[in-house]
């Protein structure tokens, strides 16, 4: 059996810490599994807060000229909803699954830098609390999650909200960067013997690519935040037109981060889908190399499309066309993924578990989000619908219909591994169908709202009959979505205590995490099975038809010809 490579002092530390229990055990833990669980649960908590904010906004918009929320309060809430969902929920929950699963999937005992891992989590956690402390300091940020200058500058946002925002984003970014570095180092150095880069599970592949995107994107955000702070606190004029600065410059720097950010919020989710569609279709991923390399293509292209957020700025046709072309190009590798996932299901023997339902829901919803994304690359369409509810609809189809559904699929898939118990399938089916219904009611109509001329980020709207009906439908959808989240929370609480015992390998999986107990011991594996392909457990379970033999057969046949 293969050796597990990890520095010795770490092992000793781990075993010692594994014995600690209770709150102190969690707070002092550097075990990647405990840190991963902390990440996921913390993100889930913030998801509930962000969801409540969403419900408040939709309640305000249920009828025209509603007086439920004050305008400024509404602006604070939509700013915090965006900031929360992006920086406190989606990115951390994906990091949580990454730090939990990556070492298990590559047969390692822990991440490369366990202490840095814990540091990454705690700094995120404190950054998040500090951000919300702004509510108690009587001024939450209210200039939108994008904080465009000059609105976010001192003359127009004169309380401390924007300072909280800029400082907290830098702090949270430190944690994100630390964890990204950690994942890269882990994958680079701690793979079990035999696991070459071509044998990496696709979730690990995409997490790895994602970590590089994080490293590329975060400096731009930090630059934007620091320059904003200099303007606000030290009377700088980076973005002040009167002082020779440029408000548009801020947009370039921010979206230079912001668009890779969009992709780093979905790439690991694609990884989850690439793991569980094959397992539930009982068929190997269709075109492993294409699925993996298309991710790299997307990661590279994601750094060259940022100005499609700025087509209304008046950059001129030349620049607009270049960014339009790049934005269209990025749709190609994305489309390839969709087709490869469907091809994986084609000819399979599909198990319709809740996890698979969520994966299919992901494919449907993400397709809509991806296609509406292409319409923004058609610049004249963008000139009409940018900054309208059409955009709101689009990115919720990507981030909720895409990332959230994929993460929920991943949650149903890996919950048995993490807790040792299955999530309830009947509750899961309710959860899925209510989510799908509520989600589509909420956001499908927002496409129409945007095209009908309703701008986004408005606390109310004039009495226009078409808008009224669509807004009402959207709000009802939000409440249904809220109920579905409650069902999910109940499912977690109930199943963690009373759920069916899962056993080591409830789904008949093919990657290494299913070769250990559920939940895994502190040291992860007693023995790691031999790895000769991307599906080591398939090879183990099907000695008559292992993947590695098939490949070498193919190679021999080629040579013979």
């Amino acid at each position, binding site marked *: 059996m293969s050796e597990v490579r990890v520095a010795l002092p770490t092992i000793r530390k781990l075993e010692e810490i594994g014995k600690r229990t209770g709150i102190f055990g969690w707070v002092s833990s550097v075990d990647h599994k405990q840190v991963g669980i902390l990440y996921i649960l913390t993100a889930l908590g913030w998801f509930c807060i962000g969801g409540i904010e969403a419900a408040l906004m939709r309640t305000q918009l249920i009828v025209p000229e509603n007086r439920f929320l004050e305008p400024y309060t509404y602006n604070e809430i939509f700013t915090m909803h965006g900031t929360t969902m992006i920086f406190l929920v989606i990115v951390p929950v994906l990091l949580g699954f990454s730090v939990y699963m990556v070492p298990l999937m590559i047969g390692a005992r822990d991440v490369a830098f366990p202490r840095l891992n814990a540091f990454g989590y705690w700094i995120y956690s404190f950054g998040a609390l500090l951000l919300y402390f702004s509510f108690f300091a009587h001024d939450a940020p209210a200039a939108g999650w994008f904080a465009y200058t000059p609105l976010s500058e001192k003359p127009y946002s004169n309380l401390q909200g924007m300072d909280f925002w800029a400082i907290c984003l830098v702090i949270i970014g430190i944690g994100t960067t630390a964890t990204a570095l950690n994942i890269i180092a882990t994958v680079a150095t701690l793979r079990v013997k035999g696991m070459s880069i071509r044998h990496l599970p696709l979730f690990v592949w995409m997490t790895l690519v994602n970590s590089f995107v994080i490293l590329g994107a975060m400096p731009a955000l930090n630059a934007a935040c620091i320059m904003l702070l200099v303007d606000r606190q030290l009377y700088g004029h980076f973005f002040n037109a009167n002082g020779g600065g440029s408000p548009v410059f801020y947009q370039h720097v921010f979206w230079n981060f912001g668009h890779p950010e969009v992709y780093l919020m979905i790439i690991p989710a694609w990884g989850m889908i690439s793991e569980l569609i094959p397992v539930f279709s009982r068929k190997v991923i269709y075109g492993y190399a294409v699925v993996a390399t298309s991710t790299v293509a997307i990661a590279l292209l994601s750094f060259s499309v940022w100005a499609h957020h700025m087509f209304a700025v008046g950059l001129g046709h030349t620049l607009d066309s270049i960014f339009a072309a790049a934005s269209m190009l990025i*749709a190609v590798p994305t489309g390839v993924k969709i087709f490869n996932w469907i091809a994986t299901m084609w000819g399979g023997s599909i198990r319709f578990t809740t996890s698979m339902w969520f994966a299919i829901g992901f494919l449907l919803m993400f397709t809509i989000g991806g296609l509406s994304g292409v319409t923004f690359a058609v610049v004249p369409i963008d000139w009409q619908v940018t900054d309208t509810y059409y955009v709101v609809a689009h990115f919720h189809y990507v981030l909720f219909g895409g990332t959230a559904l994929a993460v929920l699929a991943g949650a149903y898939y890996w919950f048995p591994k993490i807790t040792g118990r299955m999530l309830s399938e009947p509750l899961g089916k309710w959860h899925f169908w209510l989510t799908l219904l509520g989600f589509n009611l909420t956001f499908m109509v927002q496409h129409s709202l945007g095209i009908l001329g309703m701008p986004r980020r408005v606390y109310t709207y004039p009495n226009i009959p078409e808008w009224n009906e669509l807004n009402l439908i959207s709000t009802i959808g939000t409440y249904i979505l809220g109920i579905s989240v409650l069902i999910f929370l109940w499912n977690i609480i109930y199943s963690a205590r009373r759920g069916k015992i899962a056993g080591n390998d409830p789904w008949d999986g093919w990657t290494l995490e299913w070769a250990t107990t559920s939940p895994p011991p502190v040291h992860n594996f007693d023995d790691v099975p031999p790895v000769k392909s991307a599906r080591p457990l398939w090879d183990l379970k099907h000695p008559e038809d292992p993947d590695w033999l098939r490949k070498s057969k193919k190679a021999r046949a080629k040579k013979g010809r």
Partner: protein
Amino acid sequence: MRQVTSALESHSPLQHGILHVTIVTLVIMFLIMVLVFVLLVAASLRYRQGRRPGEPDQNFGNTKLELAWTALPLLLLVCLFILTVIAMRESDPPVASASGADPPPDIVAVGHQFWWEFRYPAEGFVTANEMHIPAGRRLLLRIEGFDVIHDFWVPVLGRKMDAIPGQPNEMFFEASEPGEYGGTCAEFCGAEHAWMRILVIAQAENDFQLWIRQQQSLPPAPSEPEAERGAQIFRTTSCGVCHAVNGVSSGRLGPDLTHVASRQTLAAGRLVNNPVNLEAWIADPDKYKPGSFMPNAALSEPDLSALVRYLETLR
């Protein structure tokens, strides 16, 4: 007051191209969506568990097929890109080359927190929130931001354009037939972003010239005593610090009031303009537009109605 605000309608030659490419793109995207949905549903129905015993055949991929579904979308997108570039030129023709060197703008739209200032430089007057244009004539519009970034957007007449402080933008603007077209500020600009609406009134050339003459003239001096007392109040309280009334005051921080009574709405679309609403608005701006910079002047009841009586003479 009924306004069309749908981007799926066109009342301008500049919007035709946008509408056309929008429909073509939406149809293509819809067809691709249907294709993916059909494939997915077919796969889900045909390959449910239990049709065959044991594990299905393990198919590792097919390079030719994968190349095909890389190349075909790429081809489609190349076509779409060509359509895009054509539509861009059609709907937003370059400003400088159309008529030689930089021509002076016909109208300057300035975004303020939270209202629109419309200047007519050649005619020499300023108005607010309602822009009159001659139908069938192509105008050059200059768009500026006074404080923060705003965005000028009238969907049925074409593209939106950001109003950026320190970086003015220019675009052509045209309505093909007379009518009233609704629009709004489309870039988040602060507390009252929701109430920064635009009303474009396209008129036949004659009506437009009449309107121009009316805007250029000074409103008649108030004749009845109540209105005269109102004018006195306007002059002696702080109204004129922010609001201009030609011949009376020259404030530029708030909307020009020289012909305020001739406008349809108050506070950038917040209220219908009539004496009752005007009085209510001045009495308590925070009630209708909290976050706007219009202060509560704390006038007594009789002073307030005198002031409104005066403002109603500004036609």
